[in-house]
């Protein structure tokens, strides 16, 4: 419980309910609940804060869907949604109402349970990630000491959700989407984890709060290659262009959610956009110094960083064409993975070179001058590495020599 003490909102609510009794808290007055009911106070306050966070996050996601459509419009020379409410701000609300009032259909060939479970899984996963992201100074639900591991573990589940949706729909396009999901999402986990290893080496901790606090200079300066790999593989993980293979609309209609309609589709949609915000949050925490920043309050800084990253994702979506699925896979294994390994080695070697043991046994510490030197070296490595690999690695594959079989009449749908 110690990790919650820093949170003012939690402390005040807890004191209101539990008061001075029980734990080593010093509220200075009696609470509403009698002694011995601290667990209830803890649970209630936990629920309240989670509810607050989720509501705030959902609102933010709704705003983000509006923002993305609006900005995409501007990138394309259009205006974007501007009819519902002032400047079209109520467009997400209108969309939600429309999706909620639609009939919920389960196709005939579908597996009922998996079909209905998949969208839920997708959304729940996205919300679970929120638990460990610090949104500002002392503002988090849980400061897990294995925070990064938790995020990686939890987000892997959405591969399963997508695959379930693809398999359960009983549609061949959805099957294509599901199969692509398995291949792509699992492949990109590897470079993503490798890119985080560099950050972990520098910070010496898996806790997100401690990672932020460890950033003497923001890690994107020290880990340019790591940031690049993380952004690319994260956009593949959350199915953003140019790696939107799972639902590539010009190829496989809508991929895994071809057969979904109504609010079930809405949940996929929500999860997709929520993923952008959570991923931006994770990137901001790991690489952009999290909530830290001069003058403005920490929450504002965090939101600004998140929306800056979201803007980059929108920009990428507006610009790049889609990569073919085999090239996507080749990119992960031939390009990102070796670069990731190089990055880990470079960081480790630099820590050995520059680092020196602190007297208190706090692990390896670097002086600021050394950090700047490291930054310069790493930027050079990043540029050379990306250049060399784009020269060496060819993603092109020739046509497969196939002898066309005649499909029997029964196979033709």
């Amino acid at each position, binding site marked *: 419980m110690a990790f919650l003490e820093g949170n003012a909102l939690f402390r005040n609510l807890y004191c209101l309910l539990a008061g001075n009794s029980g734990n080593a808290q010093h509220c200075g007055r009696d609470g509403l609940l009698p002694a011995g009911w601290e667990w209830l106070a803890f649970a209630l306050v936990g629920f309240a804060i989670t509810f607050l966070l989720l509501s705030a996050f959902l609102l933010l996601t709704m705003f983000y869907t509006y923002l993305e459509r609006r900005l995409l419009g501007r990138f394309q020379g259009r205006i974007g949604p501007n009819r519902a409410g002032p400047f079209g701000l109520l467009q997400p609300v209108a969309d939600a109402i429309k999706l909620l009032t639609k009939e919920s259909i389960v196709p005939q060939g579908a597996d009922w349970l998996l079909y209905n479970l998949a969208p839920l899984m997708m959304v729940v996963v996205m919300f679970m990630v929120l638990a460990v992201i610090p949104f500002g100074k002392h503002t988090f639900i849980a400061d897990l000491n294995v925070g990064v591991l938790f995020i990686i573990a939890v987000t892997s589940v959405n591969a399963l959700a997508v695959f379930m949706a693809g398999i359960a729909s009983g549609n061949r396009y959805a099957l294509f989407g599901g199969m692509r999901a398995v291949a792509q999402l699992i492949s990109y986990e590897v470079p993503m984890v490798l890119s985080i290893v560099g950050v972990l080496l520098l910070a010496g901790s898996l806790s997100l709060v401690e990672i932020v606090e460890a950033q003497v200079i923001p890690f994107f300066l020290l880990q340019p290659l790591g940031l690049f790999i993380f952004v690319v593989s994260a956009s593949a993980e959350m199915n953003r262009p140019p790696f939107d293979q799972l639902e590539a609309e010009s*190829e496989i209609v809508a991929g895994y959610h071809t057969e979904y309609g109504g609010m079930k589709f809405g949940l996929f949609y929500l999860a997709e956009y929520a993923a952008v915000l959570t991923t931006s949050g994770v990137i901001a925490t790991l690489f952009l110094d999290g909530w830290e920043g001069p003058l403005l309050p920490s929450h504002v800084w965090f939101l600004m960083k998140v929306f800056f990253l979201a803007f980059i994702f929108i920009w990428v979506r507006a610009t790049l064409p889609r990569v073919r699925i085999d090239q996507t896979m080749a990119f992960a294994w031939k390009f990102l993975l070796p670069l990731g390994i190089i990055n880990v080695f470079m960081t480790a070697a630099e820590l050995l070179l520059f680092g020196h043991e602190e007297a208190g046994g706090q692990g390896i510490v670097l002086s600021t001058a050394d950090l700047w030197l490291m930054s310069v070296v790493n930027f050079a490595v990043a540029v050379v590495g990306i250049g060399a690999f784009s020269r060496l690695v060819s993603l092109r594959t020739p046509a497969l020599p196939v002898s066309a079989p005649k499909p029997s009449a029964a196979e033709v749908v």
Partner: protein
Amino acid sequence: MPMRSEPVTVNVGPQHPSTHGVFRLRITFDGEVILDAEPVFGYLHRGSEKLAEERTYTQVITLTDRLDYVASMTNNQAYVLACEKLAGVQPPERGMYLRVIAAELQRIASHLMATGFLLNDLGAFATPLMYCFRERERILDLFEMLCGARITLSYMRVGGVFQDAPEEFWPALRIFLGEMPHYIDEYERLLSENEILVTRTKGVSVLTVDQALNGSVTGPVLRATGFPWDLRKVDPYEVYGRVKFDVPLGRAGDNYDRFKIRIDEMRQSLRIVEQCVEQIEPGPVRADVPALVRPPVGDAYSRIEGPKGELGFYLVSDGSVAPYRFKIRSPSFINLTVLRDMLIGWKLADMIVTLGSIDINMGEVDR
């Protein structure tokens, strides 16, 4: 370890977001690899050829608008040329220049649409499509000035064009000619050097010259293979003999060449329009042809270089006011015949791009 896999047959279309209309492909896949592809069409068949037999020669112009509905001007042009050949009418100079200006503008519009949709099929979320449509709208604005419509133009008549261009058309055209090259540069900067696009299209779905000639493929698809065949050069009609332009050629005959050649052709079309604007002189725009054309008994075939390939009209006259037989040689339809050869062995994603690079139009395929 070899894995056992089963082929799966998928109907791509007729309700698919990127089959360019109601086109259906029955494809056998092994995983993502195409084993066999069979185009199925006819979903947009409207019986244009039969309908034309019931209409007078002038009324048929409205039918030709609806063949390739993104390039009405060139359809009009090909048809009226056939009629003129049949009736032995020589249109006046100014009329021919106006026709060539309109047809070249239409070629730019059609290529813009083809490029935009090709890039959209590549997955570049509608951005290049919107940019291409921005310029296409300006061409359609010019057409609106010229003939009062934007898509189904019906501008040309047997013996010329129906009416001279209005005063406001010429300055607007000059502004467009001045600005368009910058926009073409912008498309090139946007994607043509893009590594993702290059990896996805270079060397993909290669069409050799022999295959192309065997399938009697024409237009940009043939020229992308490196075979110099442009009817505007080979068999000049109207005033194409009097203007200078190059015929851009590809080398490999892959998807990238087919994409690039359209951008180069847009530049050449601008050159042609510029020269026509220089050369055009005042005068009548329409020959003295009666409203009800009654060509003598006989037949005529006339062909032009349409945006998608050789567009030909074959007309048989029995001396009445309506054609006895009306046959369309539509380039989209004939270019489709090589689709199967181009697809086999490639991936699902390439299928969409290859289809986009052929630039078919279902109105013309099914007629």
